[in-house]
């Protein structure tokens, strides 16, 4: 990537004051994403993946303290006025959340919610907005879009609601779409449909897209690159192929191994990761994963590994004892 990336996250940290002391939800994260690229951010609950996306959107809780810089399309978002941010969030950066029931307004019709966005931000008149709304609903695969405009969110299934949320997100042709666990609340068959829809629209519109998920399966076939988070930090970041084929970080390896696979015979014990993530208000001196890591040594407990590049500059990991692969010996 020679040209400036669309999004660049530089040394971002998010601190939340809690009754138990300061909670560092995101810790020195560096990431960048080019126009039209897709990034998967993978991690378990509480790893900071959602907070990171909120930091990008400048939608952090009031008490949260953000440090570092978020550059989007040449602008430092932390320095933008509220009005500029509002415009940016409407037109250039869009979000799809996990639960479409809570992200849609239950007392407004689908039509009102879609048309409101279009009229406000694209300054379309009512009839144009209506026409565009129907097109958008059709584009996201909603049957009988004309009739849907008059319906309320509760009249639609979870999958249909998520389609509506995607239609609203796409309505202003954003440059970046952030999908935060977009399919976690949905059934497998519906999940596949929604992921296909996101992939199709991403390609068609040449949007950059960030998919946040706890499921490595979701990002495997549908992203250009993947970032794995653990305890607020990026622990591995690589092109998707390299991440799955040549993973260096023991956490990534353990996470992948712990997923039950269809090929495995029934009653085969799963390689579980023992223990659980550390208390985020009591950060460890060394590597956060070290208490659960089978490769950990005393160095891992006393010193925090930095995110460094391996043999290829776009594959970064934070580990003193990276997994060795024949192809990358000496890295």
């Amino acid at each position, binding site marked *: 990537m020679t040209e400036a990336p669309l999004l660049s996250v530089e040394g971002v940290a998010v601190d939340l004051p809690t009754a138990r002391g300061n909670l560092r939800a995101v810790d020195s994260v560096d990431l960048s994403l080019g126009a039209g690229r897709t990034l998967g951010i993978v991690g378990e609950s509480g790893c900071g993946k959602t907070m990171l996306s909120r930091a990008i959107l400048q939608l952090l809780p009031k008490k949260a303290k953000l440090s570092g810089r978020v550059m989007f399309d040449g602008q430092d978002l932390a320095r933008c006025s509220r009005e500029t941010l509002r415009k940016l969030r409407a037109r250039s950066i869009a979000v799809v959340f996990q639960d479409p029931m809570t992200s849609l307004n239950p007392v407004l019709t689908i039509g009102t919610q879609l048309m409101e966005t279009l009229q406000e931000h694209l300054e379309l008149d009512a009839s144009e907005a209506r026409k565009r709304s129907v097109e958008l609903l059709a584009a996201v695969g909603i049957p009988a879009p004309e009739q849907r405009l008059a319906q309320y969110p509760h009249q639609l299934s979870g999958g249909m609601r998520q389609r509506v949320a995607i239609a609203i997100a796409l309505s202003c042709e954003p440059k970046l779409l952030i999908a935060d666990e977009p399919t976690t609340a949905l059934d497998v068959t519906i999940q596949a449909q929604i992921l296909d829809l996101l992939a199709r629209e991403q390609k068609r519109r040449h949007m950059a897209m960030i998919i946040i998920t706890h499921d490595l399966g979701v990002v495997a076939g549908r992203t250009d690159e993947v970032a794995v988070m653990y305890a607020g930090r990026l622990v591995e970041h690589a092109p998707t192929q390299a991440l799955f084929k040549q993973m260096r970080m023991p956490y990534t390896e353990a996470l992948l191994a*712990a997923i039950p696979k269809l090929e495995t015979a029934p*009653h085969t014990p799963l390689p579980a990761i023992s223990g659980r993530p550390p208390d985020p208000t009591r950060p460890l001196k060394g590597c956060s994963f070290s208490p659960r890591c089978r490769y950990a040594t005393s160095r891992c407990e006393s010193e925090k590994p930095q995110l460094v590049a391996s043999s290829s500059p776009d594959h970064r990991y934070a580990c003193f004892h990276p997994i060795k692969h024949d192809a990358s010996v000496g890295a």
Partner: protein
Amino acid sequence: MIRQGVTSQLLRVENLVVEYTVGNKIVHAVSGITLEIARGETLGLVGESGCGKSTLGRAVVQLRQAVSGRVLFDGEDLTAMRGEALRKMRRRVQLIFQDPIASLNPRRRIGDIVAEPLVIAGVSDPKERQDRVSEVLNAVGLDPALVMGRLPHEFSGGQCQRICIARALVLNPEFVICDEPVSALDVSIRAQILNLLEEMKARFGLTLLFIAHDLAVVKAVSDRVAVMYLGRICEVGPSEQLFAKPAHPYTALLIEAIPVPDPDIKPAESVAVGEPPSPIAPPSGCRFRTRCPRADQRCASEVPELRPVGTGQYVACHHPLT
């Protein structure tokens, strides 16, 4: 219909129908299901949300009353039992639910929560109760001395699920219904709990009905799997065989839709068409026909019965894949 060695059978559900009303409409949650579970076996039950799998689980323990049909547990019909007899029988059957935190009373201490079934069962000696509680807490990997006096909010989701499992095991049940026991848990914790359930099953000689929507999770623990769609069983068979050679188009669709953590396997473009119809007005004939690529006239008019398609494998389809 689904035959097993009769001697080893622990649970038999016969033509079970469960319906309930929402407003003035009838939800056809379970529409004539027959299933058997052998002693010591794990039967996985999969299906999408709203297919009736949880209702079936609840109807087995009589938490939902059946409209018709029978639930034979160890030869006795639970649907005909009332009062004390039912309460006694229920001690032999326990449940574990999806949300471990919501399943625990936030104001009670772990020791009391786990001891509660013993109190209800009439174990009056506190020492005996305490010993038993310590034993099961140890079994699920928690240190009784450290956890008994604490409250549920002090524990993570995975630990709460361990506590729920301990509570389910404290009465030494024979049969445990696990209703989505790991779907609220993170990947790394999920594997721990699945391994624990397997361990407990072996240690206490349990028979399990394992309800989940995730096929890979179900396969990991089940001897046999039943696939449910809109209140009916589509297919049932030995796990390995069912996943290797699904006979029902719906089973195949579910397998196809699982996202595989391998970038070389490109997700098949929109294998899944449409969404399940409402159980308030299920389609005539085969209920899957509105989403099925193989459906024809016959599927609309005639309900397919379960019939054998291989050793121990049964399918309810007019146009099976094998």
